[in-house]
C-alpha cells in the first residue's frame, strides 16, 4: 500500500482537534476498543464501562446492539485509559507507519472476549426466539448486519479517510450517511422489539426486504464508488493517449514525409528551404491554431487573407516571408481588393527582392483603416524607370487600390530594398 494510503490515518489524530472527541481505543482493547474509548472519553475506569455493557447485555441484548453500533460508527483512534497506554501517539505506529498491523493482532483477552460474546449472543437469540416466527428474519438481519460491518471494516483506510474528507466538505453527504445508519439501526431495533409478537407477515417481510436492500446498498457502495473513480481516471488516460496518438500521426504523416523529401533534395538549397518553410508553417498552424488549420475555403478576415497569400507566395517562389499581423477584421469588398494588391506586392518582392533576406509583410487594422506594408531588401526599384507599357505594378497594385478608394505608395528604401504601403478604409465599421 502506498504511503498516501496510510498518511491520512497517521495524520488525523495529530491534528489539534478538541481532545474530547470520541474514538475507539486502539491499544489495550479486548474487542473493538469501544469500552476503552468510551471510558477515556467519559473519564471513567474501563472496568465500569465494561460492566455497564455486560449489564445492558442482560437487558434483552441492548448492550450488544449498543456495542455493535459504537464499533461500527466510532472511528479508531487514540483514547481510552489505562496505565499501559503509551504516552504519545507515535509509539504505537509501527516502523512502516501502519498502525493497523500492530493493533489488529489478536491476543488472548481479545479471543476470550469474542468467545464470550458469541456464547452470550447465542443465549440471547435463544431467549428471543421463544416467541416463534420472528426467527425467520432475526437471523438474516443479524447476518446482513454482520456482513455490512465486516465489509465496512475491510474497506481500506485510505478510502475511508477520503470518505471522511468528502463528508467534511459536503455536509449533506455526511448527514445522509448518518441518517442511513440511524435508519438501519432503528429498523433493526423495532424489528426485534416491536413486531416480535405481531402475526402480520407482510410487515415483517417488508422489513426484512428493506434491511436486505439497505444492506446490499451499503455492501455495494464502496465498490461502486471505487469503480466510478477508476473509470473516470481511465477515461482521462484514454483521452490523453488519443491526443498523443493524434500528434504522433500528424508528425508521422507530414513531418517525416518532408524530412525524407529534404534528404532527397539535399543538393538543391532552394527546394530544401521551400520544403522546410512549408512544413514549418503547416506544423505551426496545426499546433497553435487547431481550428484554422482545417478550413480550406476562402479566408474571411484580413489576418487570414494576408497569411494565406504569404504562404502561397512563399511556396511558389521559395523565398521566406515574415508575416506580422496586428488586429483583425472581416473582409469586405474593398479590403479584398487590397488583399489582392498586397498579394501582387508580395509576388514582386519575392521575385525581385528575395535575394537580400526575408520579405517582411506587416498588416495592421486600426480603427476603420487597414494598412499593409510589404518590404524587401532587394536591389531596389524605381517606378519612374519602368517602361510605361509594363502595367504590372501600375495596374495590379496602384490602380487596383485607387479604383477602390485606397492609396498605394511605392518607395525605395535608402539602404536597399523596396517598400510597398497600401492603405484602405473599411467599407462599414459596423461589420
Amino acid at each position, binding site marked *: 500500500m502506498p504511503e498516501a494510503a496510510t498518511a491520512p490515518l497517521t495524520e488525523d489524530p495529530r491534528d489539534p482537534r478538541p481532545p474530547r472527541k470520541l474514538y475507539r481505543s486502539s491499544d489495550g482493547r479486548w474487542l473493538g476498543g469501544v469500552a476503552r474509548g468510551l471510558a477515556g472519553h467519559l473519564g471513567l475506569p474501563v472496568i465500569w464501562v465494561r460492566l455497564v455493557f455486560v449489564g445492558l447485555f442482560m437487558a434483552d441484548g441492548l448492550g450488544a446492539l449498543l456495542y455493535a453500533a459504537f464499533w461500527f460508527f466510532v472511528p479508531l483512534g487514540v483514547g481510552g485509559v489505562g496505565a499501559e497506554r503509551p504516552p504519545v501517539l507515535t509509539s504505537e505506529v509501527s516502523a512502516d507507519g501502519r498502525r493497523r498491523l500492530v493493533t489488529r493482532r489478536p491476543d488472548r483477552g481479545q479471543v476470550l472476549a469474542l468467545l464470550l460474546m458469541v456464547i452470550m449472543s447465542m443465549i440471547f437469540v435463544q431467549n428471543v426466539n421463544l416467541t416463534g416466527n420472528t426467527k425467520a428474519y432475526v437471523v438474516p438481519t443479524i447476518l446482513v448486519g454482520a456482513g455490512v460491518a465486516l465489509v465496512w471494516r475491510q474497506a481500506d483506510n485510505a478510502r475511508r479517510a477520503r470518505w471522511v474528507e468528502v463528508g467534511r466538505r459536503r455536509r449533506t453527504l455526511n448527514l445522509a450517511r448518518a441518517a442511513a445508519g440511524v435508519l438501519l439501526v432503528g429498523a433493526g431495533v423495532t424489528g426485534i422489539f416491536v413486531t416480535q409478537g405481531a402475526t402480520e407477515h407482510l410487515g415483517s417481510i417488508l422489513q426484512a426486504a428493506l434491511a436486505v436492500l439497505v444492506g446490499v446498498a451499503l455492501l455495494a457502495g464502496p465498490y461502486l464508488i471505487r469503480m466510478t473513480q477508476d473509470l473516470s481516471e481511465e477515461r482521462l488516460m484514454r483521452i490523453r493517449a488519443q491526443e498523443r496518438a493524434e500528434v504522433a500521426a500528424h508528425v508521422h504523416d507530414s513531418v517525416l514525409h518532408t524530412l525524407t523529401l529534404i534528404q532527397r533534395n539535399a543538393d538543391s538549397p532552394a527546394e530544401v528551404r521551400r520544403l522546410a518553410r512549408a512544413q514549418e508553417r503547416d506544423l*505551426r498552424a496545426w*499546433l*497553435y*491554431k487547431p*481550428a484554422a488549420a482545417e478550413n480550406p475555403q476562402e479566408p474571411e478576415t484580413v*489576418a487570414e487573407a494576408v497569411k494565406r497569400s504569404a504562404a502561397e507566395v512563399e511556396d511558389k517562389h521559395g523565398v*521566406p516571408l*515574415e508575416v*506580422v*499581423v*496586428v*488586429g*483583425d477584421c472581416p473582409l469586405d469588398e474593398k479590403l479584398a481588393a487590397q488583399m489582392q494588391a498586397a498579394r501582387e506586392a508580395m509576388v514582386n518582392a519575392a521575385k525581385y527582392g528575395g535575394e*537580400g*533576406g*526575408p520579405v*517582411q509583410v*506587416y498588416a*495592421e487594422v*486600426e480603427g476603420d483603416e487597414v494598412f499593409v*506594408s510589404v*518590404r524587401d*531588401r532587394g536591389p531596389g526599384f524605381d517606378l519612374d524607370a519602368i517602361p510605361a507599357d509594363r502595367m504590372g505594378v501600375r495596374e495590379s497594385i496602384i490602380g487596383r487600390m485607387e479604383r477602390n478608394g485606397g492609396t498605394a505608395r511605392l518607395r525605395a*528604401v*535608402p*539602404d*536597399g530594398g523596396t*517598400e510597398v504601403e497600401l492603405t484602405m478604409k473599411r467599407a462599414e465599421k459596423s461589420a
Partner: protein
Amino acid sequence: MTEHTEETAPAPGRHVRVVLVDDHRMFRTGVQAEIGRTEETGVEVVGEAADVDQAVTVITATRPEVVLLDVHLPGGGGVEVLRRSAPLMADADNPVRFLALSVSDAAEDVIGVIRGGARGYVTKTITGTDLVDSIFRVQEGDAVFSPRLAGFVLDAFASTDAPPVDEDLDRLTQREREVLRLIARGYAYKEIAKQLFISVKTVESHVSAVLRKLQLSNRHELTRWATARRLV
C-alpha cells in the same frame, strides 16, 4: 543589409560571456557553431543548460552577462528560470541579462518571458549576425524586439476596451507606437532613426520604455489577451 554588417562587425575589445539554455542539444550545437567563434564574433559561450535546474546552477556558477533563454524548458519553462534568477538580474554591478530565443508562436509564451524580466525576444529563424548583434545590444542594457514581438506588443496595447489602471504605464506614446510599427515592418534601428529624424539613441530609449511598460504594466488584460489570442 549593409547597415547590419556594419553594426555587427566585431569592434576590437568587444567581448560578451554567454550561457545557452535550450533543451534541444542540436539547437545548442548549431547556435554555438554560429556565434561561438569568439575571435570573430566577440561572443564566448561559457556554459550550456538543458533544463531549469541546470540553467539556474550554470548561470549562478558562471555569472554570464547574457543568457540566451529558450521559452519552453523542462521543469517550468523560461519563466521559471527568470523567477529563480531574479537576484542575479537585480545585481547593479554585474547584472545577468536574458534574451529570450524561441520557436514559439504563442503570444502568451512570449509575453510571459518578457514580463518575467527578459530584455528581449528573438525567433530562432534569426541569422547568426543578427543574433550576435542582439546579444551585444542586450549586454549594453538595451531592449531587443523582433518584428513579431513588436506585433504582439502593438496588439496587446491596442486592443483594450477597459480603461488603463495606470495611465502612464498602460499607454504607449505616439512615438513609441511609431517605433514599434517600424520594427514590426522589419526596419533596423538605424533605418528607424533615419525615417523618424531622430537619433539611434532615441530609438533605443523608446524601445526600452516600451519594454519597461510591458514588464511593469499591471493591466491584467494583457494576460487575458494573450490567452484569447490563441483562439483567434
